[in-house]
Each structure stands twice: as structure tokens, then as C-alpha cells.
């Protein structure tokens, strides 16, 4: 008898929890879905609330305006270039440092690690950093944006934890008896076993660089070098309308009418790389959280 009551309760529980999950799913999904359908609907249908579940009066005028805008193209290219460069530099330098710190036989390991960790909790602040960059003559240079996004102590710690767990001490000892040096051991044995952590690091650096705008805002001064996020800021938030080569009154009026559609389209265009890579991203980001949570 008691069993029956419990299972009855559990049925109710399942119904409630399923409802809550579906609700949660819809709340997160709908805004993203709405952006997508609004970007291909005509402006009047959006502003009168006719676009709810499906796009209305499908047109791609927003997208065609977006692709005529030179700023978006140059922002896209800059972002790709910054992301690739800072990811490559970041993964290589982080894997190297992470591996060194994973080796217990590294003399001065603790004090060295402390030098790294201290920077996570204290910094010179905005202006002193700016003055250093200025002294280095790197204000306005794309390289400063690339470099600033390419070293994260947090990622070094994640890499260290990974190496500590996957590369047994005995492996190096055995290899070194056979005359294998550190460099060869790292290149031939450690790296081939570390595909997962390299992917995690690459994604962490790539996503941070692709999505960030702070360094570009502080250090860049020419629009030709602006990454996509700064251009998006101009279009989405500072509300400057998308510019094209056609400049006449009709075109300007038309543009104001479709400004909202364009904004939706810009959001989609900016998020497409993430969307394409998403299954991959999801897998390795989750993996990264797992490695990060097992602190060494």
C-alpha cells in the first residue's frame, strides 16, 4: 500500500519537473528563435507584433543591407584574424607552461606558480596597463589586442590539472631512462595524448577573443582595425544605422524603416560562427568545466 502512494507521488513529481524543464527550455530558446525569424521578416510586421511563431512577409532586405556594409566585412575579417592568432599563441604558450607546472620535479615550482597566481587577484589596473602599452608603442596596433587575449593563468591551471592527471610520472621516468629529453617527451608523447585539453584551451581562447570588446575599445583607435564586436556595438547600441554606398533621401528613409530588421540580422550574422561550431564547442566547454572543477 505504501509503495503505491509513493509511486503516485513520483508520477506527480515527474509531471511537474518535466513541465518546469520544458518551460525553462522555452524561456531560453524563444528569444534566440525570435531573433532568427525577425531577421527575415519585414519591418512593419515586427513592429506591429505579427511575428510570433513564424516569419511574416519573408524578405532578405536586412541581410542584403548588412552585406553591403563595408564595416561588417572588415570587422569580420579582423575578428577572424585576431581570434586565430591569439588562439594559436594562447594554446602553444599555455600548454607549455601548464606542462612545466604539472611536473613535480620542477625546482621552484611553488614560488613560480605563485608569481602566476598572484596576477589573478591583483592587477595594476586600467591606466598603468595603458601607460605600459603606450610606452611599448603598441597603442592602435592589432597586436596588442591579440596578445592581451592570449595568456590566461586560469587556463594554465586547467592545463596543469589535466597533465597531472593524464601523464603518469612513471611515463617520463621510463622515457628519460631510454634517453628521451624533455622536449622530445613533450612533443612526441605528451601532446599526442592531450588532444582534449588542446581543444578545450583553443575554444576558451577563441570564444573569449571572438566575443570580447574591452581590449579593442581601450587600445584601438582606427576603424579599419576594429573587430566585429566593436562594429556591432556601433550598429546595435550606439544606433548608427548601417551605411551603404547609396546615399539619397529615399534610401535613408527606407533604411530607418528597416533599422530594426537590420539589427536582428546583425545579431544572427555575428553569432553564426558560434552556431556552426556549437556542437563542438558544447562538448569541449563542458569537458573544460569538469577538468577545472577537479583542482590539483
Amino acid at each position, binding site marked *: 500500500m505504501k509503495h503505491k502512494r*509513493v509511486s503516485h*507521488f*513520483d508520477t506527480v*513529481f*515527474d509531471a511537474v*519537473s*518535466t513541465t518546469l*524543464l520544458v518551460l525553462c*527550455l522555452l524561456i*531560453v530558446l524563444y*528569444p*534566440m528563435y*525570435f531573433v532568427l525569424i525577425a531577421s527575415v521578416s519585414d519591418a512593419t510586421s515586427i*513592429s506591429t*507584433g505579427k511575428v510570433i511563431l513564424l516569419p511574416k512577409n519573408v524578405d532578405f532586405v536586412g541581410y542584403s543591407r548588412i552585406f553591403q556594409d563595408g564595416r561588417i566585412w572588415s570587422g569580420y575579417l579582423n575578428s577572424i584574424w585576431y581570434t586565430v592568432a591569439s588562439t594559436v599563441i594562447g594554446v602553444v*604558450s599555455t600548454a*607549455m*607552461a601548464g*606542462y612545466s607546472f604539472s*611536473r613535480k*620535479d*620542477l*625546482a621552484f615550482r611553488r614560488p*613560480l606558480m605563485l*608569481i*602566476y597566481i598572484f*596576477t589573478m*587577484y*591583483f*592587477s*595594476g*589596473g*586600467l*591606466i598603468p*596597463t*595603458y601607460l*605600459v*602599452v603606450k610606452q611599448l608603442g603598441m597603442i592602435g596596433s592589432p597586436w596588442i589586442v591579440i*596578445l592581451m587575449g592570449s*595568456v590566461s593563468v586560469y587556463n594554465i591551471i586547467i592545463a596543469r590539472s589535466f597533465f597531472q592527471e593524464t601523464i603518469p610520472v612513471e611515463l617520463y621516468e621510463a622515457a628519460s631512462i631510454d634517453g628521451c629529453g*624533455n*622536449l622530445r617527451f613533450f612533443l612526441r608523447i605528451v601532446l599526442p595524448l592531450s588532444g582534449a585539453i588542446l581543444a578545450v584551451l583553443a575554444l576558451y581562447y577563441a570564444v573569449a577573443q*571572438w*566575443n*570580447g570588446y*574591452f581590449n579593442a575599445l581601450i587600445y584601438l583607435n582606427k576603424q579599419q582595425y576594429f573587430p566585429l*564586436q566593436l562594429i*556591432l556595438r556601433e550598429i*546595435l*547600441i550606439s544606433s548608427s544605422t548601417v551605411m551603404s554606398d547609396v546615399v539619397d533621401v529615399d534610401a535613408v528613409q527606407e533604411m530607418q524603416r528597416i533599422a*530594426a530588421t537590420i539589427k536582428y540580422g*546583425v*545579431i544572427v550574422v*555575428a553569432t553564426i560562427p558560434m552556431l556552426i561550431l*556549437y556542437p563542438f564547442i*558544447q562538448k569541449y566547454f*563542458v569537458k573544460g*568545466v*569538469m577538468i577545472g*572543477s577537479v583542482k590539483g
Partner: protein
Amino acid sequence: MSKSLNRVARSIRRNWVLYLFLVPTLAYLILFHYWPMYGVQIAFKNFKPARGIEGSEWVGFKHFDKFFRSYMFSDLLKNTVILSLYQIAISFPFPILLALLLNYCVSQRLKKTTQMVTYAPHFISTVVLVGMLMVFLADSGVMNQILIKFGLQPRNFLSDASMFRHIYVWSHVWQRTGYASVIYIAALSGVSPELHEAAIVDGANKLQRMWHIDLPAIMPTAIILLIMNTGNMLSLGFEKVYLMQNDLNLSVSEIISTYVYKIGLLNAQFSYSTAIGLFNNAVNLVILLLVNKLSDKLTGTSLM
């Protein structure tokens, strides 16, 4: 003594490649973290770019004094702390709840779909997120259309200062809950199935199992995260707040980091801005250390 010194020297010689591996990141940290820390002294000087850091005259705590006396001081501190604590308090329970629901989800497909969808907003950039908020919450935006449909008064969400904190915090909940639940899901997967089996035999229902088995299992993780977040409350991010600022909500949206940026880079008051930044960093560090001690005492877990 000389023997152990010898051993260290030998170990360094044998592992010189490992030290070489540290060079790129160490160089980066020295250049972009430790050199700026040396430059922090301009907080105590009247820094003139033409004279350089060393050539500028010392003024002691003048800039700090000015900041503590300025009418901005209490507003900035209040805005920063309130926004921070509001966000921590609200965004704390949701990932736990989501993880528990996912853990008890009967349909694998629903579970997978929900995870995929709820993680996604984490990868939307701050600029795009704030852009979405602006189109949704505009006067003629979707939100107001919904309000009108339900017979409610439309509002000026974006120019209403009293809405700023809610928009900031709840959009954070929307964006980060899924991703933040990952760590709890990991903790839940560590719970031994035998505990649940035993509980089922004893006639416990799902809610009881959730309360007495799963919640205690994730509590340590939850408490550590909560404590760490509280320790970081003064280092509230610049990016999202700065994008959401407008002239009408500045009374609640001006926080320390955005003020440092404006005073320092836009108004070029280098020393004053550095002093404010240093005050912020120092207080933050002290809070973090205290909280870390507390965490160590309470849970036996600490950062370092």
C-alpha cells in the same frame, strides 16, 4: 646544505627545457601585469606624461582623499555592491534547480535538448546580448507588445533607472544559468547510485531523495561557489554595464570600473583614476582573502 643546493642545480640543468617552456607566459605576465603594478605608484603622484612616472612629484594620499570626499564615492560603492550582491543572490539558486531537474528528467531526449539549448546563450557575446535587450525592450519592442496584448501599460524599460538592475541581473540569469549548472551536474553524477537504491527500498519518494541525497551532495560545491563570488563582488565586470549605460540610468549604473575608465581614459586624469582603481583592487583583495579564510574554516576548501 651544499648537497641540496647541488641537487637543485642538477635538477634545473636537467629540466632547463621546462624553464624555457615558462618563458613566453612569464614574459607576458611581467610585461602586462608586473610592469603595470610598478606603475601603480602614480596613484600617489601627480603624474605628468611629459615627465614620466619617475619624474612626477609625490603627493601622498591626495587622490585617495579627493575620491573619499567626492560626492561620487558613496554612489559608486553603493551601485557596485548592490548590483553585485543582487546578481549573486538571484543567480545562485537557478543552476542548482536546473541541475536537479535534469538529474531527475525521465526523458533522455528532453534532457539532452534542454542542456544544448540552455548552454547556448553563454556563447553569445556581451555586445550581442545587450543588443538583444535593446531591441526587445525598446518602446516598440516585443516586450511592450506582449504587455499591450495582456492589457498592461507599456514601459520605457531602457530609460527607466529603476529597471536597470533587474534587466542586468535577469538577463544574466537567462544567459548563464545553463552553463553554471554544468558543475552541479558533474557533482550529481558523483552520487553513488546505491544511496538512491537504498532510499527507494526504504520507500523514499523522488522529492525526499532529492532533498536528503542530492542536495547534500552538491552543497559543498554550491557553498564554495557562493563564497568565491561574494569575494569577487567588487570586481564586477565592465563590459556589460558599460554597454547598458545611458544618460537616464547613470544614477544606478555608474560603477567603479566604468568610472575608472571614463575618468582615466576619456578625461585623462591618470593619477586620480589609478588611485580609484587601486582602492578597488586593494579592497577586493582584502575581501577575497577574508572570504578565503572563512571558506577554509567552514568547508576546508580554499583557493590557494
